């Protein structure tokens, strides 16, 4: 029973990190209809910037996290301005956007590799003692990662569903041409969307780095976020969160009760089974609502 609760808490926290990534994908996909593969490079970049902030610039953790968020937002918005926006202006097919995103990703990951080397590093933060409740040990870092991730998602929800900017983004995700007829500036929407994905990837990168390790290829975990958003239902934010939580808990349970070697096997098996019975994902609608 102790093991179950420990794994559950750990699963919720990793699920929360997956949620940040899955929501980042879903947001870009819902507005621009392409998979932003550059996202995994951004995640690694976010983790490395926080790492550098602490080790080389001697910042406290919170300042390093803020430093990482700001730089990742700049990278994400810069990518939109330099790589995606010119393609959209030329009405390029969305496949080109995806290839462009892959290029940005390769460049980001390899530049990080060149500067920092490919080794695995421990995130430079003191390991806090776990809390013991009735014999169950609960990692403080898990609590923090879960809490802050859910906090970020809640803020994003308020932004999207309770503000004028959010309405503009949702309207653009449904019909970008009609949105511009309403006076919604497509370029401004793009900047906001990519700034938000920058924040999400940085926070996810930092917490993932704390939980596992910091290394240039760490962004490969975003494939899990893709699985999560497909399991939930592609393009929908609540579905992305649902899929992420299920996947996170499933993985930690497999690691705890079977073996961590088989963890990814179960993730992909789970994806296949879900798609066999729910081709649109658990909450997926065949069409219509996207965000």
């Amino acid at each position: 029973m102790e093991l179950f609760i420990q794994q559950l808490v750990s699963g919720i926290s990793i699920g929360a990190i997956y949620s940040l990534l899955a929501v980042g994908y879903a947001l870009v996909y819902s507005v621009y209809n392409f998979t932003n593969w550059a996202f995994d490079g951004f995640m690694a970049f976010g983790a490395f910037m926080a790492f550098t902030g602490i080790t080389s610039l001697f910042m406290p953790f919170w300042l390093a996290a803020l430093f990482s968020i700001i730089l990742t937002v700049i990278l994400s918005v810069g990518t939109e301005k330099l790589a995606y926006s010119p393609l959209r202006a030329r009405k390029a097919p969305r496949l080109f956007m995806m290839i462009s995103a892959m290029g940005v990703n390769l460049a980001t990951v390899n530049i990080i590799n060149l500067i920092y080397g490919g080794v695995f590093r421990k995130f430079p933060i003191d390991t806090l003692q776990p809390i013991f409740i009735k014999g169950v040990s609960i990692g403080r870092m898990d609590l923090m990662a879960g809490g802050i991730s859910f906090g970020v998602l809640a803020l994003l929800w308020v932004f999207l569903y309770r503000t004028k900017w959010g309405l503009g983004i949702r309207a653009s995700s449904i019909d970008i041409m009609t949105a511009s007829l309403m006076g919604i500036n497509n370029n401004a929407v793009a900047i906001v969307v990519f700034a938000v994905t920058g924040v999400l990837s940085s926070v996810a990168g930092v917490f993932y780095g704390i939980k596992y390790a910091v290394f240039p290829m760490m962004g490969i975990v975003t494939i899990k976020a893709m699985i999560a958003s497909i399991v939930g239902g592609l393009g929908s934010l609540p579905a992305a969160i649902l899929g992420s939580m299920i996947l996170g808990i499933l993985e930690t349970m497999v690691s705890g009760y079977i073996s961590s070697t088989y963890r990814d096997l179960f993730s992909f098996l789970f994806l296949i089974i879900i798609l066999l019975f729910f081709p649109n994902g658990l909450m997926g609608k065949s069409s219509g609502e996207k965000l």
Partner: protein
Amino acid sequence: MTEKMPMLDIQDLSVYYGGICALNQVSLHVNEGEIVSVIGANGAGKSTLMKTIVAVKSFTSGKIMFQGQPLKKEAHDVIKDGITLSPEGRRIFSPLSVRENLMAGAYTRNDRHEIEATMEEVFTLFPRLKERINQRGGTLSGGEQQMLAVGRALMSKPKMLMLDEPSLGLAPIVINLMFETIVRLNKEMGLTILLVEQNASIALSVCQRAYVLKTGTINMEGTGQELLHDKRVMESYLGIAK
């Protein structure tokens, strides 16, 4: 009284899609307070004309002046100058509620009280929308969606309202209601309206002046009544043989 400057003045407008000419040297104008109709068959260039006026489509040559100023280059700036288009096929944001659709229409405005006041005016015109305020746009009937599309366009408080095929896909009784409302908007609120229609008889009967667009060029122009009784218009667009 001296001749007033037209609100919208288009001169020798040409628009191409790749190498294909969609509009060729089109000139037309809309005076303040008028309803002007542009009629024409499928593919005559009516929607291209509308899209060009709101800067969704760029033009190759010619001039578009609105209130004496050249047209802005971006759609979201054109609406700030006071031109709002209710697009062809309604293009409701179907997952959003009726209220959210209307709020999206008011995107360029900031004063909450004024926006609420405009929304009340829209509800006076279309009481049905108030009953459906929390329903998703996509669940409305065709007629209600057209009301929502027009209501959404009115939310920006336009100086000139443009309607692209407001009769499209609607039952005859609903079309009549829609055009009664269009006339009310013009008569009671003094709104200037430019509309394009395939349904020539209704478009000509509500307007002060009209243009006939045929394969990208203005073929005829005149008052609505003149064109309604014109032999060529009757044969080609009204289905009346003489």
